[in-house]
């Protein structure tokens, strides 16, 4: 029963973010790109938060966010982008897709842990 879905094509980022969240008592499931993320979210209704990269092969994170709302019809799950990008154009697209927030890499777990826990009700 995963609470947080971490989506990133970098195994380094998946390991860093996933391990940090697990060490802090959160259940985590990993996906390698937007297509994989969409599939895993579809199969696990317990996921309450998606933390996703933007630039990924096969399906990028913003497209995945749009499909979560449109194709899956899932308006409840919180989506946060974790990316090197900081472009206002991308953020506007994310906002239009209903994402909850934006983190510019590198990931600093201590800065976001309390908010992540609040978003998943832990």
């Amino acid at each position, binding site marked *: 029963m995963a609470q947080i879905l971490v989506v990133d094509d970098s195994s380094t980022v998946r*390991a860093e973010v996933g391990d940090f969240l697990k060490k802090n008592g959160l259940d985590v499931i990993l996906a390698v790109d937007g297509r994989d993320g969409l599939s895993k979210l579809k199969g696990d209704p317990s996921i309450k938060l998606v933390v996703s990269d933007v*630039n990924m092969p096969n399906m990028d994170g913003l497209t995945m966010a749009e499909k979560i709302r449109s194709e899956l019809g899932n308006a409840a799950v919180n989506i946060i982008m974790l990316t*090197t*990008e900081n472009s206002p154009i991308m953020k506007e697209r994310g*906002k239009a897709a209903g994402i909850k927030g*934006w*983190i510019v890499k*590198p990931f600093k777990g201590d*800065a976001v842990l309390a908010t992540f826990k609040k978003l998943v009700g832990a």
Partner: protein
Amino acid sequence: MLSQSAKDGFDLLLTQSLKNSVVPSGAEAQILTLSDITDIPEKKIVVLTVSSYLFRLMVMFYFTPDAETRAHFARLNNIDEAEMSEQSFMDAIGESGNLCCGILNRDLGNFFPHIGMSTPNVIDRNCAQYLQKLNSQHIQHFAVDRDGVPRFHVSLCVSAYADIDFAVSAEELGSDTGELELF
């Protein structure tokens, strides 16, 4: 087509990005410019591009997959060196390059709004000898030095498709990272 100010700006932005991405947080690094890289020992390159419709730049990070380099990039990415496979080592180096070019991409975005970057790719060191063939207007090589970290090298190659002139100073740089911006 590239003004001297623009060349200096690209160099400054890259050196600042390197200091914030490929050396441990809070550590001081010395970054020297080199006239050529013929004799550098590294065997492989991670390459990324940052481009707009006005220019394309390539950043090449040279490395050798030895024990010292593996230890450095494991430490840098907060991953357990003992559990680092060959694939995860390559991924860790690629992610460091991704972070560096992400910072560069963001800073350049202040001057060029329509800009994007590639994902990292690993190529052979021998490819570097063909940089001159890209008809670029600016090639600069750097050595990154810090105590306890293996010296490594970076090349910047800028190809401009229009006249480019911008000025940047070190005081203007620096943006918050890692903080959650809630919408």
